[in-house]
């Protein structure tokens, strides 16, 4: 436990350590890295969605000034192994493919060749001189086309574009549907979107022929798994392979896995014996870095007339695009949807089916709350139930959400629900927004022809989830490690497995360690992102794990070093360690601030002459295992909209979030995560669409076509913190994903509410679609 009298940084909005460099222009991002002899590369990419490659002529490109190499699939043979999703999943097609297109291109942006030159400018000149002759094939764009056996299969070796299907029951849905008063249905067609980190992907591969050492400076959320995958696929000894991350300009899941391009860049550096840098431009990022959310869900509920939900029937379809991501088998996203869709609601029966399709589009990749389709589908269904039964949508939620008194209990899909206060966040939200008052305002506004609406969205998310959540989704991650080390000057170094890129872990973990150790924040340094020093993690930063898992690991590693320091000090001072405490960077006798010695004096003494029979350094590695209870974050979002009936533009005058992520480490950081997440959710609901036309051309390849919301679109977002009862000493839970998970449903429900309960089934809600919905609403009245 924390020392009496020690400064408590946890719970305070302390200033971010990261800002010292970020606000002064001294961050060091990928494209800032310059190495001796470094070359730069550019990819030749397919401008067709589906075609056979008849020939590639790089003769002219190879002879251009400053060009070192033009690498195609032929040159890569032997340097990079053929690629395939590793996990064998029954029923899941796993085609073999290559880092560069081999014989065929399968989406606009598919990498065909890699040009390496003395500079980016020269590489791009030569890239434009590579001549690729294509024989076009019919493009497979929609999921219905993917299901059509008459259209060509993307991958000859698997022969079908239907990559995965499953169907199963939870509980006894047939009985529940038969017993229900009625069935209410809803449907959601969620648009393909993309992550848009402000910095795109890239890397600098530094190969030293003399020692066979390969260092990859990678913008990676998971350096250790990137290293493992590189070692396996490049057949490079892992002990000579190091992945190290610079500052990263956002990721949101897009940089979680190793990309085909990463492999090519590393192989090129090995072939050429010089460092090679690749930094993608925005067009590449939008077209080829990974997309998400192209899913449809048809959902029905067996309900009683009082709004009680007895069972669900859920049919999910997911368009994974062309190439599967290497690390994450696409069905996993459906499995999390399947596991979480019952959520904090008292729903015990479900019919479930999942279909995953391949198409001539960019790869489906995990994006902030990758299973968010479950909340979107469920929360719009709840509003449909309310509308069709003539009930209030808040009352339908109240009737079906689990109370704390019912917990612990099990979701129908398996995971334990404990300490989940979603219903309390709903009540708090209803109070906060003066719901009844708004309904009155809405009625008056409608009389004046103004369209006001309100939408709720209540949810929980695994952040990181209880241990049995991972059993339910069939994906194990394990505990999280941290290293803590007292330096000879008495400062503390904490090394985390996290690979932060905006989440402020340097600050939050320093808050945890400084509070535990009894030293000022400035005496703690958090290191990360270098596989030579960081403890192993297959996950890195992702899955909303850091708040619980990295904090827990840092806490326990720090505590262990503290125990060692107290024991050594006890020996030196000839006093029992129990009578000592650490405060203000001094070890002192409890209650006697003037006694004892500075941590720096102790550390210097221990390093200079280690006590007999003791290890000589003040260091500890802790493995923090998932606490057995709780593990969820959640909350309720309330979105207010006003729709301009003339233009179809949806404005959001007010947005409120009541969130529960347990105890707060740094409230300002939590607020920032919530607001940023909501902004992305609003983008999904109203603006963003990674669009392809019928021929498979990608038509959202600039920021003029792919609309990222600006300060003119995103409103101020009220954030209210609610703390459910703690289940563990480490009562901090992840908060990065919830905003994006919950917001689309809140916005969509508000739009539907403004239009008198009109069905809203397709995202994004662009002005033309909203105008069409207004027409539908008018026709019904």
């Amino acid at each position, binding site marked *: 436990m924390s020392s009496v009298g020690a400064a408590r940084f946890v719970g305070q909005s302390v200033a971010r350590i990261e800002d010292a460099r970020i606000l002064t222009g001294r961050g060091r991002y990928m494209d800032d890295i*310059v190495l001796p002899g470094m070359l730069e590369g550019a990819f030749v990419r397919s401008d067709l969605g589906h075609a056979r490659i008849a020939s590639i002529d790089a003769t002219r490109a190879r002879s251009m000034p400053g060009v070192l190499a033009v690498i195609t699939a032929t040159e890569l043979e032997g340097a990079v192994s053929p690629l395939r999703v590793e996990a064998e999943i029954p029923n899941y097609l796993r085609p073999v493919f290559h880092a560069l297109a081999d014989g065929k291109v399968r989406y606009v942006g598919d990498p065909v060749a890699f040009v390496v030159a003395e500079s980016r400018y020269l590489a791009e000149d030569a890239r434009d001189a590579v001549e690729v002759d294509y024989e076009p094939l019919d493009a497979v764009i929609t999921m219905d086309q993917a299901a059509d056996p008459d259209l060509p299969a993307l991958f000859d070796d698997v022969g079908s574009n239907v990559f995965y299907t499953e169907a199963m029951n939870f509980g006894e849905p047939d009985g529940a549907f038969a017993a229900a008063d009625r069935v209410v249905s809803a449907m959601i067609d969620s648009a393909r979107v993309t992550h848009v980190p402000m910095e795109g992907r890239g890397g600098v591969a530094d190969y030293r022929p003399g020692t066979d050492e390969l260092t990859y400076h990678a913008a990676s959320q998971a350096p250790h798994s990137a290293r493992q995958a590189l070692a396996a696929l490049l057949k490079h000894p892992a002990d000579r392979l190091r992945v190290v991350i610079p500052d990263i300009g956002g990721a949101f899941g897009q940089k979680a896995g190793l990309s085909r391009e990463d492999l090519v860049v590393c192989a090129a550096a090995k072939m050429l014996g010089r460092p090679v840098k690749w930094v993608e431009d925005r067009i590449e990022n939008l077209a080829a870095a990974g997309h998400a959310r192209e899913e449809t869900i048809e959902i029905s509920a067996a309900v009683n007339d009082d709004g009680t939900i007895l069972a669900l029937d859920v049919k999910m379809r997911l368009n994974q695009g062309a190439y599967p991501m290497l690390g994450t088998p696409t069905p996993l996203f459906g499995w999390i949807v399947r596991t979480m869709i019952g959520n904090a609601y008292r729903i015990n029966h479900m019919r479930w089916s999942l279909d995953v399709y391949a198409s001539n589009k960019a790869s489906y990749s995990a994006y902030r709350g990758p299973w968010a389709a479950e909340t979107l589908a469920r929360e719009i269904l709840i509003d449909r139930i309310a509308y069709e039964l003539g009930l209030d949508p808040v009352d339908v939620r109240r009737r079906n959400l689990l109370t704390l008194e019912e917990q612990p209990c099990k979701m129908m899909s398996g995971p334990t629900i404990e300490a989940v206060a979603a219903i309390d966040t709903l009540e708090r939200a209803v109070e906060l927004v003066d719901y009844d008052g708004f309904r009155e305002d809405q009625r008056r506004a409608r009389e004046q022809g103004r369209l006001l609406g309100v939408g709720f969205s209540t949810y929980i998310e695994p952040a990181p989830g209880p241990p049995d959540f991972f059993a339910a989704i069939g994906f194990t991650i394990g505990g999280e490690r941290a290293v803590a080390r007292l330096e000879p000057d008495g400062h503390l170094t904490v090394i985390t497995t996290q690979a932060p890129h905006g989440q402020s872990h340097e600050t939050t973990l320093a808050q945890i360690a400084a509070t535990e150790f009894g030293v000022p924040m400035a005496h703690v340094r958090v290191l990360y992102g270098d596989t030579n020093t960081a403890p192993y993690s297959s996950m890195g930063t992702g899955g909303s794990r850091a708040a619980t898992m990295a904090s827990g690991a840092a806490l326990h590693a720090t505590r262990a070093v503290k125990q060692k320091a107290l024991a050594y000090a006890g020996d030196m001072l000839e006093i029992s360690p129990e009578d000592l405490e650490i405060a203000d960077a001094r070890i002192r006798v409890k209650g006697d601030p003037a006694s004892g010695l500075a941590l720096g004096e102790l550390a210097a003494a221990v390093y200079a002459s280690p006590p007999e029979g003791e290890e000589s350094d003040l260091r500890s590695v802790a493995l923090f295992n998932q606490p057995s209870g709780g593990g969820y974050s959640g909350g309720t979002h309330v979105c207010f909209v006003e729709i301009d009936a003339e233009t179809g533009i949806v404005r959001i005058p007010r947005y409120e979030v009541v969130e529960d992520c347990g105890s707060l480490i740094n409230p300002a950081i939590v607020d920032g995560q919530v607001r940023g997440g909501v*902004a992305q959710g609003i983008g999904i609901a109203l603006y963003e669409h990674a669009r392809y036309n019928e021929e498979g051309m990608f038509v959202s390849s*600039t920021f003029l076509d792919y609309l990222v919301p600006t300060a003119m679109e995103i409103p*101020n977002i009220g954030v209210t913190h609610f703390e459910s009862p703690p289940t563990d000493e480490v009562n901090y839970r992840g908060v990065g994903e919830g905003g994006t998970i919950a917001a689309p449903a809140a916005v969509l429900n508000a739009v539907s509410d403004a239009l008198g309960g009109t069905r809203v089934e397709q995202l994004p809600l662009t002005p033309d679609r909203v105008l069409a919905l207004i027409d539908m609403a008018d026709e019904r009245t």
Partner: protein
Amino acid sequence: MTVEVAVTVNGQLRSAGVDARRTLADFLRHDLGLTGTHLGCEHGVCGSCTVLVDGASARSCLMLAVQAAGTEITTIEGLAVDGELNHLQQAMGDGHGFQCGFCTPGFMMTATELLRENPRPSEAQVREAISGNVCRCTGYESIVDGILRAAELIDE
């Protein structure tokens, strides 16, 4: 064709020989080593590369280095004075204005221009002024608040 380009950056005279087609952003970043300016889209929409050229904000991805010859340029590295954060930096730090830091240089330079032209902007004016800058992390509220707070600090 190599051209010698000389500019005054953050008060210092700097020069380098560059290709006529080199962008101002690449000149600042790679020829002068001022990597605080970032490239987020290279087509003039995201605003990450915004610098001040003779006091006016400019997208350094859409401007050639040769066009900037003889001008006075301010980049994010030039905001702190003698190692002391200026009011805008202080306000952004206090209020957790940014997260990943990639869009930061553009917002900081846009806000610098705004506060020079309109020392006490309203929230609506701040939002309008930064509407040509994209941030994907924050949802903008912390940036808007930071600029409003900076205006107060400058006033005090």
